[in-house]
């Protein structure tokens, strides 16, 4: 992915997370599924996980409380993530 594509891909991940107003987080596979509908149909699960971790490190996503299986990770958008989207889209 080029720099701009990567930027748009991360934005798409945040957009999916932002659409989720529930108290629960979303897993890697669900992110992969939904970013496909936002113009990224061919990304691998590995790519999705890597970028989720990057965006999390930036404080825009946070890991939700873990499910029963500890290997499953779920992410939710943070307040900073919402601010980021609002700023980028305004």
């Amino acid at each position: 992915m080029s720099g701009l594509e990567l930027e748009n891909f991360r934005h798409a991940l945040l957009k999916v997370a932002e659409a989720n107003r529930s108290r629960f987080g979303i897993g890697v596979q669900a992110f992969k599924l939904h970013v496909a509908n936002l113009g990224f149909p061919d990304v691998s699960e590995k790519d999705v996980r890597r970028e989720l971790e990057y965006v999390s490190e930036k404080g825009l996503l946070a890991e939700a409380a873990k499910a029963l299986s500890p290997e499953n990770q779920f992410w939710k958008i943070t307040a900073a993530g919402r601010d980021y989207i609002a700023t980028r889209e305004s």
Partner: protein
Amino acid sequence: MSATRKPRGDAKLKTLPEERQQQIDDLLASHTLKEVQASLAEDGLNVSLQALSEFWSWRQLRAQFSRKETLVNEALEQLKQSNPQLSEEALFSHGQTVFGLLALEEKDSLTWKRIQDARSRRLKLDLDRQRFQRETAELFLKWAADRRAQEIAAAGGVAQSEKIERLGQLMFGDDWDGKESTGPTRTGQSDAKEISPK
């Protein structure tokens, strides 16, 4: 990540009051993107088709997550009743697991898409029906004064079906196919040639 890129087109829509967003959502459910774009432009809201499309995707996804959370909450409520000893933390973990699985299910959106497709078909039928009715009224005005048509209509002792057959041949000539059924839901009717009594 840069926060100073160009504004996204769907931003104006997402920042509208929820009620207005819902109205646009409803419009999108029964009209084409172009029709909604034109309608919004009349209200002074100029957005691209791409922005509308993205806005709709976002609304759908939001609604989808919301419905899934409702399902999970209902399930957790039942679980809590049958297992009152479960802690809130354990319940949340169960909920998270189920929500995580439901978020993977696309059936919701496929069902939704089918509903939208059905709405679009119904809308097309409505428009076809309106056009058919208008064209029928126009044809009536054109032919009501025609002597041959009047004679056919007034002929005594002739069955209704025969009158229809004769009138059809008079009005449509070689294009007339009396074997086909006619009625307000026959969408092909609107393709009838522009004809006038000679």
